[in-house]
C-alpha cells in the first residue's frame, strides 16, 4: 500500500514536468558553478580524467530543488507543503527524480560568510501531488542589500523558473546578519505552503578578529586559538560585543491547516480567511520542537486523510522536517538566537522566561547608530511580524542551570490546532 501512493504520484509528476511550461522541450537542469564540471554543484569529482578545482575558498555553490511534499504536525496531522531542499552533490540527470516529493519544511539552511560569491541554482521539479498546477518558483533572498531585480526573485518584476528547468542566482555576499529566503511566486500561496527557510551570513571579523579600541580575537569557527575567543561574532562590531559561543537559527512560522487541505484536495484557497492554527518554530509545534534532529518521514494520519489508509508513507521515504528548535549550552556561554519571522498572517511575541535578551541587530544590520554608538536593547520579549529578523544574544553567565522556555507570549498560540500544550514553545537547556 505504501508504494501504491508513490507509484501513482511519480508518473504523474514526471508527466507534469515533461508537459509543463511552454519551453519544456528544451528544459534542462543546468547547474552553474565555477570549477564544477559535472553539474552537481560541488568540486568532489573527476570528470573525464580531470579533477574538479574550486576556484577560490569564497566561491560557494548550492543546488536547491523547489517542489512539493508533506510535513506532519505535532498532533499527527499531515499537511501538504511546497518547499525547498538542498540536493548539492546530486548529478543533474537525477535531480528531478530525487527532488520529487522531497522538499523540506522549513527549507534547507543556507549559511554563508561575508565575502562569499554564492552561486545558487534552483531547479523546479514541479508539484507532483498537484499535476494540474504548473507554477514557476523563485528564491527571494529576503533583505539582500543592494539587490538587483534579476536576482531578487519577485516574479511580478523579474523572472521565475518554470518546471523542469534551472535558474542560477548569483550573490556577492557583503553584509553579515540574519536573513531568510523564500519563494515569491504567488507569494501568499507559496509561502503559506512552506517555501520558507533560514539564511544567515557570518561576518568577516570571525576570521580577522578586531584591533580597535577594544580588541577581539579571531573566532574559533575560523581557527582562532585564543582561550577567550568566542565561536563567532554576529557583526563586524570592532569591539567584540556581538561575540557568541552557541548559535541557533529559529524560524517563526505558522500554517493554516484549512489552506493546506484545500490545496491538497484541489479546492479554492482561503486567502481572505487565512487564520493560522499551527504556530511553529523551525516547522514544528511543541513537543516536536525539542526532538533533536529529523522527525520521521511523513506518513498518513490515523484517519487516512491523504490516502485513505493510516500510516501510508507520503514521500520518498526520507524525512522532510530535519531542523529541530531545541538549544543546549553550558552555563556561562553566550547564546545567539537568529530569529526570523515568516508568519503570513499575524504578529508574534517571543520571550525566554528567566533569561535576558539583548537585541544586537535587526534586519541583518548591526544595531549601531549613525554616530557609531551601539544601540543594543535589553528586553524580556521581542514582537515581530513576517519579514522581521532579530539577532538576540543571551548571556548565561551566572544563570542557574536548568531548562528554560522560549515561547510565544500570545499564549493562545501554544497549541497544535486543537491539541493544547503545543505550538510555539521550545526549550533552552543550560547545563
Amino acid at each position, binding site marked *: 500500500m505504501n508504494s501504491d501512493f508513490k507509484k501513482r504520484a511519480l508518473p504523474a509528476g514526471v508527466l507534469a514536468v515533461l508537459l509543463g511550461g511552454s519551453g519544456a522541450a528544451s528544459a534542462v537542469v543546468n547547474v552553474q558553478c565555477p570549477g564544477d564540471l559535472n553539474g552537481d554543484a560541488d568540486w568532489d569529482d573527476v570528470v573525464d580524467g580531470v579533477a574538479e578545482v574550486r576556484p577560490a575558498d569564497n566561491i560557494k555553490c548550492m543546488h536547491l530543488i523547489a517542489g512539493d511534499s508533506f510535513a506532519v504536525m505535532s498532533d499527527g496531522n499531515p499537511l501538504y507543503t511546497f518547499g525547498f531542499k538542498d540536493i548539492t552533490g546530486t548529478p543533474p540527470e537525477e535531480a528531478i527524480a530525487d527532488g520529487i516529493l522531497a522538499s523540506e519544511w522549513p527549507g534547507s539552511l543556507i549559511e554563508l560568510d561575508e565575502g562569499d560569491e554564492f552561486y545558487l541554482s534552483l531547479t523546479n521539479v514541479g508539484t507532483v501531488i498537484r499535476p494540474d498546477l504548473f507554477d514557476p518558483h523563485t528564491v527571494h533572498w529576503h533583505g539582500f542589500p543592494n539587490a538587483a531585480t534579476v536576482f*531578487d526573485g519577485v516574479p511580478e518584476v523579474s523572472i521565475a*523558473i518554470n518546471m523542469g528547468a534551472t535558474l542560477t542566482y548569483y550573490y556577492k555576499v557583503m553584509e553579515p546578519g540574519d536573513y531568510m529566503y523564500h519563494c515569491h511566486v504567488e507569494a501568499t500561496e507559496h509561502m503559506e505552503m512552506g517555501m520558507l527557510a533560514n539564511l544567515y551570513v557570518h561576518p568577516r571579523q570571525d576570521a580577522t578578529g578586531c584591533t580597535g579600541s577594544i580588541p577581539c580575537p579571531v573566532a574559533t569557527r575560523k581557527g582562532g586559538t585564543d582561550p577567550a575567543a568566542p565561536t563567532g561574532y554576529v557583526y563586524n562590531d570592532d569591539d567584540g560585543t556581538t561575540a557568541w559561543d552557541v548559535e541557533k537559527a529559529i524560524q517563526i512560522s505558522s500554517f493554516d491547516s484549512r489552506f493546506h487541505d484545500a490545496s491538497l484536495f484541489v479546492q479554492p484557497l482561503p486567502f481572505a480567511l487565512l487564520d493560522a492554527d499551527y504556530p511553529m518554530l523551525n516547522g514544528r509545534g511543541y513537543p516536536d520542537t525539542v526532538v533533536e534532529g529529523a522527525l520521521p518521514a511523513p506518513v498518513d494520519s490515523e484517519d487516512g486523510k491523504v490516502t485513505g489508509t493510516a500510516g501510508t508513507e507520503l514521500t520518498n521515504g526520507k524525512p522532510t522536517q530535519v531542523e529541530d528548535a531545541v538549544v543546549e549550552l553550558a552555563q556561562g556561554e553566550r547564546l545567539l538566537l537568529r530569529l526570523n519571522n515568516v508568519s503570513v498572517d499575524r504578529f508574534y511575541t517571543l520571550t525566554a522566561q528567566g533569561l535576558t535578551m539583548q537585541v544586537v541587530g535587526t534586519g541583518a544590520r548591526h544595531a549601531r*547608530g549613525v554616530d557609531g554608538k551601539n544601540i543594543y536593547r535589553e528586553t524580556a520579549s521581542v514582537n515581530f511580524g513576517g519579514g522581521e529578523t532579530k539577532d538576540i544574544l543571551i548571556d548565561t553567565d551566572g544563570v542557574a542551570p536548568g531548562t528554560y522556555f522560549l515561547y510565544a507570549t500570545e499564549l493562545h498560540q501554544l497549541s497544535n490546532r486543537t491539541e493544547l500544550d503545543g505550538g510555539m514553545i521550545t526549550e533552552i537547556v543550560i547545563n
Partner: protein
Amino acid sequence: MIKHPAWSGRLLGVLAAGLALVLPWQPAQAQHDIRGITGPSFNLYTYPANIPLPEGTSLYMWLFGDALGGANATHPEGVGYALPQYPGPTLVVDEGDEVTITVTNYGIPHPVSLLVTGHEVTALGGSEGVFTRQAGLYETVTYSFTAEQPGTYVYHSAGAPNPGLHVEMGLLGVLIVRPDDFDTSRTAYGAGTETDYDQEFLYLLTEVDPDIHFEMERGHYTHFTNADRFAKIWFVNGRVFPDLFEDDYSPIYPFQPYSALAKAHPRDRVLVRNVNPGQDSHPFHYHGENLTYIARDGRMLSSDGTTANLGRSDNTINSPPKQAIDAIWTWTGKDLGWDIYGHDTEHTCKDDDNDGWADDDADYPGEWCADHGKPFPVSLPGPGELAFGAWYSGSPFLGDAGDLPPGEGGLNPFAGYFFVWHSHAEKELTTFDIFPGGTLSAVVVLPPDVDIE
C-alpha cells in the same frame, strides 16, 4: 541588446494597452514630494463615496474631502480636485504654523470628528463627542493647534456611537509638518540633523473588512460589532495592487488620488513616511535595501537632539496602528559584482574625484566603478524556461530593455529596477480573496538620465 531607442516603442505599447505607468516625467526635475494640500488653514468636508476595486466591485466608504477644491494643492495636478478621497487629503504645514482645520459633515450618518496624533488640539463648534467635539450632519467643527515639531502625524475621525467605525470606513489621513528652514534646506527634521533627502514618498497602510461597509451602505448602522471585524482588503495610500501603480490624481480612481509607486535614482536618499492610520498591525517590507529609521511619531530618534543617532536599520517596518515612522532608503547598486549597465555596452566610469563613484558628468553618474566592466556572472535560461513579470525589462541591466516574448513585460518603459514594497504578512497581498492584490506596491530605481517629477 537594445538600448534607449527601444523605450519609445515600449512606451507606445504601454499607452496603447491603457496601462500607462507614470507619465509624463517632466524634464529638468529630479525630486519628488508627497502630494497634498498646504495650510495653515484647511477646510475639509466629509461625504460617502464608493471606491472601485480592481476585481470589479466597489466599496462604500466615508471620506474626507477638500472643500477648497485643491486651491492650495502642493502640485498643479491637485488643483481643482474636490472629491471625497481615500485617504483624506495629506495636510502639509510648516513648523510653528497655527493650524486650523474646519470639518463640515455633509453626508456621514454618524457625527464625525478630528483627532491629530502628537498635538494638543482645541475644538470649537458642533457638539461634545467621546474624545473631542464632533460634527453631526450639516454641522461644522473647527480644530486648531500649533504645529510645534516637524514630522509625520496621523489624523482621523472617531466618536460615538462606535469609535472603531470611522477609521474602518475611511475617515483618516496624514499631517506632515515641514521644518521651519525647509525653504533653504530639504530635510525632514531641519538643517544639520542629517535628515536630508532627494525623494519623498508616503506609504500609508490601512485595511478594511468589507462586510462592515456592506452593512453601512444598506443603512444598517448598528449591524456591526467590533469583535467581528476581520480585515480582508489591504491598502497602500488608499489603493490596492495594481491600481496603486497608477499616477497621482488619475481619473480612473476618482476617490483615490494617491499613487504608491516610489521613484528613485541610484544613490538617492528616499524619505519614506511609513504611516499606519488603520486598526491592525502590518509588517511592511522594503525590497532592494534596508531603511534607516530617523523618527517615530514625529520625534527624531535621537539621544542628543542633533542627529537621529538612535535610528536602527531594518528592511521591514513593524507598523502598529497610528504609528508614523520616517526612514531613509537608499539603493546604490554597489558591490553587485557585475556591471549593472552591462559590461559590453559602450561606456566608461569616469571618476576624477576618486570617490569610487562615477562623476556627475560621467556616462552613468553614480555608477560604482569597482564593478565597471565586470561581466554578468551567470547565463540566464532561455525564454521558454522562464516566466516573466509585467514589470521586468527583459534585461538584467539597468536602463536596458531586452527582448521579451510577445505579451510579456511591457510595464517598465524606462527599464528601471522594480523592487516591491509590501506587507510581509503575505495574506495582505490579496484583495478580498484574490491574489495578487492588496499592498503589493513598489519602488522603481530609474537610470540616471530619466527624470523624476
